[in-house]
């Protein structure tokens, strides 16, 4: 504790200088780094018999909670931050090194120094103490207002007392009048009352907080009684459904919430935007009718997983109008394509014809003009055919969409601003040959429209081509190489084309991507599939995204300056950080799945593998 205090004094001096003069604390931080104890004494477990306490902290929560959350092991994670690989990776990023030279970084260091000064311990230790071994929280509705109850199991009674003392010190030191808090005694417990909205006290090593004096009394009484109590059913259910080792579990009684406060649990069942309805219609419906929503966060090494589950009760399945989301086919494998230089690949079970037929129940009247326009535009593209009757019925599910970085191999003048190539891939049904012809005609029509616009602008038009690749016929347009007219700069990114591979129809913005997809779809041994039960799946490719971010650096920076109001330096830092983040990402995916009787929304982000940090690699920073 004395070493912490001594360190605090040094930091206090440095902090005052930094705050007053805006100086960098780097030299001070480096000294502090070298003098840092491995773990502050306050966080070390103490010997001696602890006060009797409840076995499971979550049993302190009331049974009538609408929302419960449980965080386990976060304290240890926080304490490990200064020595962890995540810190090393962050500090090795070029964008972080650049950030270290900016005034906001100095302000960040000054802020951290202030927190440590006030908290009397290093910030990681303070955070670790606040998050404790476990933290539970619930929100219930009482007297028409949400009421919070929370508890943190800290390392020992001294840690809990220290945190309470911290609250008292902050109240006393505040210059606000009236003060933002006061001290009180409830049933023999000393509590800090913050803005008459939060009562905070400690029982043994458990720090308790509640949104009212009455709730705090209840909480403290349960904590004092100790022993074994039942966990609220809502949380028990969340624990049972959660993956092993979940860092965070939470559950929401959405049925009760919808009954008590309908506006707070409301989802648009009829959307104004057709594509919004197509993408999220089933999710909105299931969320609206869900009785309980459960969530879990798992941190597994360098992988973060988030899972939100909406139990789909068998008694109220989706109405017939939702057949376009093809939940009935969930058991079938869902293919996915992964071309080289993958930026994004996605697949969705969507029946376009069914969606069109039922869109009246999935979309509001405001969407009708958009449907009318699609009917008109696509009808024109397909040579006067009816979109609803002739085209959409030919498209089965799933629908794949992919974006890939372009290589521009063999292109003499790559564009200054490089767009990704994009392609739609559909499984077709019905007369494949006939639809193939319709698709070719549509491509030719589309190119004709582009070329009419090119003529007005006196720029190079697309030239039609009809070629074969691996025995597959491709029809498309590309810019000529021997035309003296200038090319519209953005159009150098495109060579729109289409092809038909077995049962798959592909419409691509570039030849390069189309050929890659033909290669992949033609080779059965290269087939990839999503996890079982997937309804929709989206995956990002970090490496290619990082390369594209570098290639389009100037355009991204200019966009941030002109459209987002950033300074040049801020825009450059933002762009570099995004590129670094992409480079550090091995994979990221978002998926909806039907499994274990529930509708799951899953997110996963895995960092790319790195070599372990060495002491020499640690640079600047708190």
């Amino acid at each position, binding site marked *: 504790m004395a070493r912490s205090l001594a360190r605090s004094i040094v930091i206090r001096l440095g902090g005052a200088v930094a705050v007053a003069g805006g100086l960098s604390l780097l030299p001070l931080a480096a000294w502090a780094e070298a003098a840092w104890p491995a773990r502050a004494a306050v966080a070390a477990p103490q010997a001696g018999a602890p006060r009797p306490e409840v076995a499971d902290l979550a049993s302190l929560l009331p049974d009538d909670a609408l929302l419960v959350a449980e965080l386990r092991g976060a304290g240890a994670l926080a304490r490990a931050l200064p020595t962890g690989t995540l810190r090393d990776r962050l500090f090795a990023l070029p964008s972080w090194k650049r950030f270290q030279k900016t005034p906001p970084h100095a302000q960040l260091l000054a802020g951290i120094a202030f927190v440590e000064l006030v908290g009397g311990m290093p910030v990681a230790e303070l955070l670790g103490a606040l998050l404790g071994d476990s933290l539970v929280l619930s929100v219930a509705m009482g007297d028409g207002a949400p009421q919070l109850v929370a508890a943190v199991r800290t390392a020992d009674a001294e840690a809990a007392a220290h945190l309470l003392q911290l609250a008292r010190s902050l109240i006393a030191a505040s210059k606000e009048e009236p003060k933002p808090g006061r001290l009180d005694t409830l049933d023999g417990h000393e509590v800090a009352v913050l803005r008459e909205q939060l009562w905070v006290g400690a029982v043994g090593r458990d720090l308790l907080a509640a949104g009212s004096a009455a709730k705090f009394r209840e909480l403290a009484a349960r904590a004092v009684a100790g022993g074994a109590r039942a966990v609220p059913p809502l949380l028990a259910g969340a624990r049972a459904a959660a993956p092993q080792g979940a860092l965070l579990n939470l559950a929401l009684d959405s049925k009760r919430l919808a009954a008590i406060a309908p506006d707070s649990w409301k989802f648009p069942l009829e959307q104004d935007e057709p594509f919004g309805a197509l993408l999220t219609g089933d999710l909105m419906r299931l969320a609206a009718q869900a009785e309980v929503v459960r969530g879990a966060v798992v941190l597994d090494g360098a992988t973060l997983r988030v899972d939100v589950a909406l139990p789909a009760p068998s008694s109220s399945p989706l109405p017939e109008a939702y057949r376009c989301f093809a939940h009935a086919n969930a058991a079938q494998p869902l293919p996915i394509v992964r071309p080289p230089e993958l930026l994004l690949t996605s697949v969705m079970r969507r029946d376009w014809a069914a969606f069109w037929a039922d869109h009246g129940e999935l979309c509001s009247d405001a969407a009708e003009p958009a449907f009318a326009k699609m009917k008109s535009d696509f009808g024109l593209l397909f040579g006067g055919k009816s979109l609803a009757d002739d085209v959409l019925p030919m498209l089965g599910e799933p629908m794949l969409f992919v974006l890939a970085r372009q290589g521009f191999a063999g292109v003499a003048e790559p564009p200054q601003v490089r767009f990704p190539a994009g392609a739609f891939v559909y499984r077709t049904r019905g007369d494949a040959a006939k639809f193939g012809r319709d698709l070719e005609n549509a491509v030719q029509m589309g190119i004709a429209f582009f070329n009419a616009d090119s003529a007005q602008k006196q720029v190079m038009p697309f030239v039609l081509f009809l070629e074969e690749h691996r025995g597959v016929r491709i029809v498309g347009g590309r810019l000529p190489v021997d035309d003296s007219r200038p090319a519209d700069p953005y159009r150098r990114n495109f060579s729109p084309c289409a092809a038909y591979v077995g049962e798959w129809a592909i419409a691509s913005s570039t030849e390069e991507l189309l050929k890659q997809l033909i290669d992949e779809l033609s080779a059965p041994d290269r087939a990839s599939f999503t996890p079982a039960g997937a309804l929709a799946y989206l995956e990002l490719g970090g490496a290619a995204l990082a390369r594209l971010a570098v290639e389009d650096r100037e*355009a991204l920076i200019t966009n941030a300056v002109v459209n*987002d109001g950033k300074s040049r330096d801020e825009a450059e830092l933002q762009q570099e950080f995004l590129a670094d983040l992409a480079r550090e990402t091995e994979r990221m995916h978002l998926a909806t799945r039907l499994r274990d009787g529930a509708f799951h929304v899953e997110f996963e982000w895995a960092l790319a593998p790195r070599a372990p940090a060495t002491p020499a690699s640690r640079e600047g920073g708190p």
Partner: protein
Amino acid sequence: MSDALAPYVVGRDGPFGRAEAAHLLRRAGFGARPEEQERAVAAGLAATVEKLLADDEGKEAAQLGASGALVAEGDALAPLQGVWLGRMVATRAPLREKLALLWHGHFATSLAKVQRATWMWWQYELFRARGAGRFGELALAVARDPAMLVWLDGSSNEKTAPNENFARELLELFTLGRGEYGERDVQEAARCFTGWHVKEQRFWFNERAHDAKPKRVLGRDGLQDGGEVVDVAVAHPACARFVATKLLKAFVADAPDEAAIAETAAAFAEEGLDVHATLRRLFLSRLFFDRRWRRARIAAPVEWCVSLLRRTATRSKLAAVGTATGEMGQALFAPPDVKGWDGGAAWVSSRTLLARGRFAAALAYGDGALGTAVDWAMLAGTAADRDGATLVARLAELLVDDGLEPATRARLVAFADSEGAGGGATRIARVAHLLLSAPEALLV
């Protein structure tokens, strides 16, 4: 050298203090903060004018300028407006941008018809590059500019069917003004410009379409080509007066009197229609510092917004600011017609004043759409917690160079001292908002 634009001798004719420096920096630039005005006073009039005439725009403005061509490829108006506005806000050479803005309104061309943002950007770069030089060279370059050729139908001007649009506007709007030429001059000039077309995004002289027979324009026989028409028009005595009037309206007063026009036209002619040389004489002249012309212009929307952004040192979403100036009546790259913007009292209407009011509110209170977030407490400094008079004085100095009428000042002070103003940063913002809504805030 004649008496035209007789020099202002500091001391004899008057001081070069804060008021004079502020006046000069408002007119030749986009206004300046008090500390910049102090530096100008310390440097002296001559040095300040030379600095204004120099072309060192600084790194940030240059970077924005370099990105313009890239942004233009997107063919969208708002981002292109944003780039130019950003350059105006960031530049250390504001006169260069003001001149480009002047010529953009003089040789008015709109993206609405040109439909190629890249060409509009090239035209702006032309105004920047040549706008401070000899007017004749600028006019000739504009006559060959692809955007202008599309705008005034040059590309459809052929010997079999001459199109008079450009020829007419060259004489009426760009060089001489009404009454200085006849219909015959327009027809003959149009024939001179036949074959002045655009091909592959560049000027192309289409010999096949050109009428090579000799023509008579403005009393000169034997003219063959459009370039000769430009030379003749620029050499006409009326041109110096016509363009000088534009310069006066841009830099001196919305309604300059005949004496000022005559004086400036004479100087312009003496300088061979060299804009920079003439502006140097103008900014150093007794005419310029004449008290009649102080705060005698209504700030154009772009000028007004850029000035406030510079004075308050706030970042903003420049593309959104471009849209806002359009709502105030001045959309960059999209003037309403070939006459450009009328300026002066035409800037003031119920619609445009509402738009200026919205911008003033966005600046005062912060606005997500415009991205503005002024640190009023920092700008107000020690005046932040002081009485109303001190606060108003500080804000008036910062935002309008102290240009408040006594009655307006008294009302602002009364408000600042009232409970309704609130406290802290809110009080400063509210006072600033009211100040910017006062009529005096529109005057430069």
